[in-house]
């Protein structure tokens, strides 16, 4: 030991310096990204926290007027806030739930390789790639009460007698927004699940079939457990996105009718930019980011299992 300490072998020193070099290089390589992320994400989120304990207004957008936790307490006591939470929860549960079910169904269908499965898989890319705003505009036109194609189709098929104003009733409007969201998001889930299914060794299910397991049993006891992490990833990603839904609501209903589609993000937008209460807006948006961080932690735990990154 003492010998190697006093007379370092050339190889050892060289490896040491190489390692130090790597750390220095690594730091320099990371620097541009770290500076940008610090500037546009980390500092802003801290400033949001600061603004959330003030009564700052948009007319004078410098954090001022410290009022402690009053913004938060106001919301916790207000019906508007809880109604928005309720609508957000409804949107998230219904849309993500249906998207997972339908996504799984489509993935299973493609995995069974019916004639034309390749065409079906390529076709899935289209709804996924259509920008959210275009998707919303398209459905808004389809739902149009007077000239919309949904009414025309249902009437010509004899399903309805008179045109239905789809976006007049709050709950129905919310459901129509969910349908538009489902059209856009099912392909994403289907593509992820289908890719995961393709990695399951075919022998497993064949062996079970030989042993007399029905298709449904094979699905439940072999395919579903093996798809666990893919399902969880899709579930967490979609839940985070659904919880912060804004764009599609802005285009289809503008939060209406009668605030019927005002979700928590939409409420934040109204508070901040329509009513100009930056402080109040900041407090809700900070609550949203806490929820999102919890979901992010779940997501990271799924990806990092046993210290290894699963991709």
């Amino acid at each position, binding site marked *: 030991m003492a010998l190697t300490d006093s007379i370092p072998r050339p190889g050892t020193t060289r490896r040491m310096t190489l390692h130090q070099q790597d750390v220095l290089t690594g730091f320099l390589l990371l620097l541009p990204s770290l500076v940008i992320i610090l500037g546009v994400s980390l500092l802003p989120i801290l400033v949001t926290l600061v603004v959330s304990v003030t009564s700052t207004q948009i007319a004078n957008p410098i954090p001022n007027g410290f009022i402690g936790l009053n913004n938060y307490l106001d919301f916790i006591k207000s019906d508007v806030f809880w109604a928005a939470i309720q609508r957000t929860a409804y949107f998230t549960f219904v849309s993500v739930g249906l998207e997972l079910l339908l996504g799984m169904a489509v993935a299973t269908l493609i995995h069974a390789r019916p004639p034309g499965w390749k065409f079906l898989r390529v076709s899935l890319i289209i709804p996924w*790639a259509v920008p959210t705003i275009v998707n919303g505009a398209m459905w808004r036109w*389809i739902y149009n009460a007077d000239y919309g194609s949904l009414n025309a189709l249902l009437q010509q098929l004899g399903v309805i007698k008179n045109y239905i104003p789809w976006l007049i009733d709050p709950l129905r409007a919310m459901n129509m927004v969910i349908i538009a969201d489902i059209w856009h998001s099912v392909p994403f889930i289907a*593509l992820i699940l289908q890719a995961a299914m393709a990695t399951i060794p075919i022998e497993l299910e064949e062996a079970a079939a030989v042993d007399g397991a029905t298709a449904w049993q094979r699905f439940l006891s072999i395919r579903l457990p093996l798809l666990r992490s893919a399902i969880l990833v899709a579930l967490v990603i979609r839940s985070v996105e659904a919880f912060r839904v804004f764009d599609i609501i802005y285009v289809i209903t503008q939060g209406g009718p009668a605030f019927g589609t005002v979700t928590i993000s939409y409420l934040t937008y109204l508070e901040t930019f329509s009513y100009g209460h930056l402080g109040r807006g900041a407090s809700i948006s900070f609550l949203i980011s806490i929820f999102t961080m919890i979901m992010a932690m779940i997501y990271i735990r799924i990806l990092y299992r046993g210290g290894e990154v699963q991709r």
Partner: protein
Amino acid sequence: MKRRRRLSLALMVFFSVIALVLIYAPVAWLIISSISTRADLLTIPLHWIPVHPTLQNYLDILIPGTAASDVAATFKVTLGNSLLVASSTTLISLVAGSLAAYALARLAIPFRQTLFIGLMSTRMIPEISLVIPLYILAAKAGLMDSPIILILTYLSFALPFAVWMLAAFFETVPFELEDAARIDGASRLGLLFRVVLPVAAPGLVSTAIFTFLLAWDEFFFALIFTSTLASKTVPVAIAEFTGRYAVDITAMMTGGVLAALPPVILSLIFQRYIVTGLTSGAVKG
């Protein structure tokens, strides 16, 4: 047994057809609306095949001077803005991102795991939680209504995303390739540019497409930070058709088709990369 197999085949074909109809019917109506005259769309009962098909709506938007409405004439400018903002965001994310991703994927730097997790969490911070400080910043720095503030704010989600995705691809490059080049005396940067990037080129393409789509799709920041043609992007322009100009349905649908074309065409051309991207932990819903 044979009859059962034929039955299940018939069922699968049946469900495939339903899936295809559900995918294409809304898109078909979008396209049909864009090549119809307004009068044709407002007839009852509705004709599914346009009586007077026309490309006039496209000409109104694409050829200046012929436009019937102001909105249609200005739409082309917003297409340009979207292209500028989305490609700048993509370029910066790729350059800064591949440097950082190489450090995270290959170098024994301290706090590597922490940095990775921090990156993932930043990617998930909702835009709405960042917008107020960024709004204050933009107002103070005189960056309101400029493409620069959009590019800066888009980096908040595009850059962590790009680093994350690139690191995943860099990790798949065999160490042996780098070792060989190292013996030949290549520096770390030399390894990145001459060995890792060429080998991980598909990952680079994949990341570029995803980042571009994320930026092209972005609406919320654009809604808050833009107000005139100096920086207004396509999603904002389309949202405006639905708001103030609710009657201009043909222009809105035509704008919709034009806005959807770049991402749809890109995704179809590079579909192989899209599916790998989705499975490597990509996050575009």
